[in-house]
Every structure is written in structure tokens, then in C-alpha cells.
């Protein structure tokens, strides 16, 4: 008889333990598993000599990961003066959190105006000549290279400041 009781005891306790384990598993509150990359928001700030059609952010990304995909945006810039202007750009940020982590490339046609970090983009880029009423598209690419650290959940709002200087045209 004792040999008959022992299995009941063992199986009963094992069943109870299994039920408790099943209950805990069923009532788990799962982690969301969402990624928390870096966020970059870029808006253009243009002077009166040039026109940028978009107001607000022309680039907005919330999930940049080190070694992940880059994000691209286009910023059309139009000369609204009666003569040619030299346009250059630089970045203004409220914080330095992603200064060294985020890389930015600015290209117009086949020409690279800048390819640097956000910190590097705090300096003016090389100039872009825009003739009267000419529109050129500045293509912006932003990414975080592999190995960049301390980027999780960081956010930066970048004002891409444009500077335009009227160019003297030599008359013949």
C-alpha cells in the first residue's frame, strides 16, 4: 500500500508545481522588445536669399542603431535673389549627446559638401553656388557607425542653418 501512496504523493506534488509554473508562465508580463535607437530630427533654417519649401523637420528618425541602416532625406534649396549666391550649411544642436556618434553626409549632385560627424557639422560646409532662380537638392544621409557607444535612447534636434552670400558677378 505504501508503494501505492508514494506515486500519488509524488505525482500530486509534481502536478501542483507544474500548475503553479504554468500559471506564472501564463501570467507573464512580457517585455515589449521594442528597439530604442537614437533619434535625429533635422530642420532647415534658411535666410531670405534662399528658399527651402519645407517648414519643420525634413528629416525625422527615431531608431538609429550603431551599424544599422542610414536614413536619407532631401532638402531642395532655391535661390530667390536676382544674382548668384554661395550657400553653405552648418548644424546647430541643443545638446552634445550624439555629437560624435551620428555621421552626416551632405551631397549636391555628385559633390560632397560635408561628410563628418554632427560635431564636425557644427563648422560651415564648403560653399554651393546657386545661380539666379536655380534650385538644387541637398541630399542628407545620417547614420551611426558600428561600434558607436552611448547612443541608446539619445535624441538630438538639429537646426541645419543655411548661410547665403551674394556673389559679385564680373561684368565684361
Amino acid at each position, binding site marked *: 500500500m505504501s508503494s501505492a501512496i508514494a506515486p500519488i504523493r509524488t505525482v500530486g506534488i509534481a502536478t501542483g508545481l*507544474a500548475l503553479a509554473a504554468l500559471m506564472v508562465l501564463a501570467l507573464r508580463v512580457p517585455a*515589449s522588445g521594442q528597439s530604442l535607437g537614437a533619434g535625429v530630427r533635422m530642420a532647415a533654417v534658411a535666410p531670405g536669399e534662399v528658399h527651402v519649401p519645407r517648414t519643420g523637420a525634413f528629416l525625422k528618425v527615431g531608431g538609429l542603431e550603431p551599424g544599422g541602416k542610414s536614413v536619407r532625406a532631401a532638402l531642395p534649396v532655391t535661390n530667390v535673389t536676382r544674382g548668384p549666391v554661395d550657400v553653405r550649411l552648418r548644424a546647430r544642436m541643443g545638446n552634445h549627446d550624439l555629437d560624435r556618434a551620428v555621421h552626416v553626409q551632405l551631397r549636391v549632385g555628385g559633390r560632397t559638401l560635408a561628410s563628418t560627424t554632427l560635431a564636425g557639422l557644427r563648422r560651415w560646409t564648403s560653399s554651393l553656388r546657386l545661380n539666379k532662380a536655380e534650385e538644387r537638392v541637398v541630399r542628407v544621409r545620417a547614420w551611426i557607425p558600428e561600434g558607436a557607444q552611448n547612443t541608446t535612447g539619445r535624441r538630438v534636434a538639429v537646426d541645419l542653418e543655411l548661410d547665403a552670400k551674394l556673389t559679385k558677378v564680373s561684368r565684361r
Partner: protein
Amino acid sequence: MTALATPRRTRLRLRLIEHAMPALRMLRTLLRFAAMTATGFAIGIGIALAVPLAFHARPLVVLSGSMEPTLGTGDVSVVRTIAPLDARPGDVVTFRDPDNADRLITHRVREMHAQGGSVVFRTRGDANTASEDWQVASSQEIGRVVYRIPKLGWALMYARSKGLFVLMLGGALALLLVLELASIWRTEENDSDQGA
């Protein structure tokens, strides 16, 4: 007449008991199994509450319905300690009430981002309409709810409110139960030994 009837009744009773014995044995086996299952379940729940303590987690009683239906009032939520930047939008986290440091709040992360040496959160209870914004130094810790045990919080709260007395009483009752079960097993074993 009655002298003849008595042995006949006794025989009938004996026959009835004989017929009922297998069913009674089955019932006793089922009851024993149910008791063992309940004991195993209680042990399992005890483990589910105690083991997390060894792994930077602790059980907390849910006192409001702000997280219904994910967490109900009276549930025990087992909360694991994490760095703020290990949380993610959608996680259910426990943090100190920004307006009352003695109070803990458990709500779902709606948005979060790092800012300097801090992590800024926007959280909201699933049953709430208003969010709360708060921040914590990234070197500090918050909690993330791992699992819940429904309604057990009421019992824990009651035990806590009545102090050690209830705990001792509960312990004594549990001990009595264990001793009683042990005596049943022992009797069974003795019976079987004699039978053999």
C-alpha cells in the same frame, strides 16, 4: 423473527460495504491526490514569490486599478530591478512617484529618451487617460514587471496588517496540516504492513 433478521441485516451491510469499498478507496485516492496537488501548487507559488528575491526582483502588491486589465487590484506583481536604459517603450515599469518618493507607481512606458545623465520617461496606466512625465538618473534603478500572481496580494496585505500573529497562526495551521497528512500516510503504511 428478529433474531433471524439481525444476522441477515449485518450480512447485507457487510455486502454493501464490500461493494462500496473500491469506490471509497478511489475517493480517498482522489482526495489525497487533490491535497498533494494543492500542496504542490502552494509550494510553487511560494517559490514564485521567494526565488525572485535572489535575482534582483521582489514582489509588490498592486493597490490600484490603473493598470487594469494587465494588473488587477490585489495582484502581486513580481518586479525585476533594471537600469533605466534597459526599459523599452511598451514595458510595464515600477518607479517612485515624482510627487511622493514614498509611493511606488507601476505604469506602462509610452515614450522614453536619454538626456545627458538622465533618462526621461512618459508613462501611463493602461486604464488611465493622463500620462506622467518623470526622469531618473541613468545610474539609478527602476523595476520592470516580469509576472503577476492574481489576488494573492490581498492575503499578503491582510497578513501584514495583522502582523506576525497571523503569520504564526498560518504557519501553525500549515504545520498541523502537514502533520495530519503525515499521520494519514503512516496509518496507511502500518495497515499495509499488517495486511502483508
